[in-house]
């Protein structure tokens, strides 16, 4: 058994020795509760019983990001010629927008611009987003 500082029904801190020897007397008085050896800071302490916190939910996967190289690879050869060489405002703007990784929602809007301008087909846009 170890001694712990209990505050707001939680283990605030566990002492791994004799609190009277480890801490100044003004602080040692807070370490007045005996807790099981497996108690760690942050555990719950309800009605004299140790309550381990629920395991954290699995992290959501990182959102998919799309950049200029991913766009280019999904285009047909003819579309790549336009992407590489066309000076149309839509192409220039789209390349600037894809200068860094973008979210799918962001990329969808830019690809719609290119489809509307006839630079790429809807099928190619769908391929980028697939």
């Amino acid at each position, binding site marked *: 058994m170890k001694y712990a500082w209990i505050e707001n029904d939680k283990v605030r801190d566990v002492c791994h020795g004799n609190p009277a020897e480890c*801490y100044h007397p003004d602080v040692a008085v807070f370490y007045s509760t005996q807790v099981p050896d497996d108690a760690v800071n942050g555990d719950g302490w309800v009605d004299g019983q140790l309550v381990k916190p629920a395991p954290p939910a699995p992290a959501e996967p990182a959102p998919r990001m799309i950049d200029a190289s991913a766009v280019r690879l999904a285009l047909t050869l003819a579309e790549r010629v336009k992407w590489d060489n066309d000076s149309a405002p839509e192409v220039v703007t789209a390349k600037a927008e894809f200068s860094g990784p973008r979210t799918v929602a962001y990329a969808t809007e830019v690809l719609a611009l290119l489809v509307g301008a006839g630079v790429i087909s809807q099928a190619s846009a769908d391929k980028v987003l697939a």
Partner: protein
Amino acid sequence: MNKGLYGLPVPPNAPTRVAPPRWTNFKVITSTTSAETVPLNVYQMGVAVWGGGGNGTTATSVSTPVAGGGGGGFAYGIIDVVPNQTLPTITVGGQGGTSSFGSMLTATGGTNASGNTPGTGGTGTTSASLRGAIAANGGAGGSGPAGIQFAGGGGGAGSPYGNGGAGGSGSGTGRGATGGGGLNGRGGNYLNNVDHAATGGGGVFNGGDASTTNSNAGATGGGGSGSAGSGYSGSSIGGAGGSGLGTTNQPAGGTNGGGTSITSGGSGNGGYEVTGVRILAGNGVGSGNFIDVVMRTLTGGGGGGSASQVPMGGNGAPGGGGGAAYVANVGGIGGQGGIGGGGGGSYDLGGYSARGGNGGPLGGGGGALGTSAIPVYGGNGGFGGGGGSGCTASGGTVGAGTGGQGVVVLFWTEGY
């Protein structure tokens, strides 16, 4: 014979004992031990004890503010010793834990934040028999206005400079992310009513505030050891860091330390971005270590704030906080604090990711805010610093900054 504190003969000249004019050696203790001994030819030692920092919190909502963790408490005193003597047990607290030097010096940890309720700072307690005793509280975490997406910074640890600086807080109606607290300077506060700004971390002085006169977005500078950080001049020109004690001129655009002739104590200039011309925010310049913390001789400047297409705030030098990062459509990282400096806040508008700057040793981490489902991470606290908070507007990966563990540092000067 007169017996010393541990039942051993008192050192020579004990009745007329004076502390050395300056400690010349130090040892950082990061885990609990009962095996530390006194170096040869040493008869007094300074002992500094810091508790661990509290964790920040997270949220994934456009209307939820989150708060930073509290900074650790601090206790310091000078003990009389004899060479080769075994020191009493040194307890080093983990995150949020209590650190102690025997029963003579104890510093409790800062508490974890809960939602938008910030963690509170730890406290320091010293025995009355110690010479030169100092005790100080850690700073509280920062928090935001109710109902508004906001990420508060973590609190800084206490020190001889005084109570630790609080993490920056918000009081307007705009969304924002604030810097962590430093030694005595708080993270910049967010006072205005527009969205999209981040504030710098505190150092010895405060991080720059996003003031009520700002009507636009931007990033402020970190606090320095000689003055507070500056506010921004719009999203394309970040705020300069606070000056260090060696600064003799005003910083010039984007350079580390504010100019080519400044090698100590210069502030970092703000980042700059206009029509494709992008200049990184400058780092603070200066020097210092734990001896300078207890002697209060830190000289470093704060880091500059970023501009809208410049992804990083400048790092703080010792005694300086990191600059903030406000970015649009690129990933943003707040600047790291130097020793005793808080990390800068990070605000990312529709881009890739946002990461609050980590606090330097004894500094709190910066808060981080993303306006879309991007990865967001609050900055971690350094030794004794509270963790920053993190929030996204709508899901995505989000992580809170963790509070730093506690630490104990021993100081001595041979011959004293």
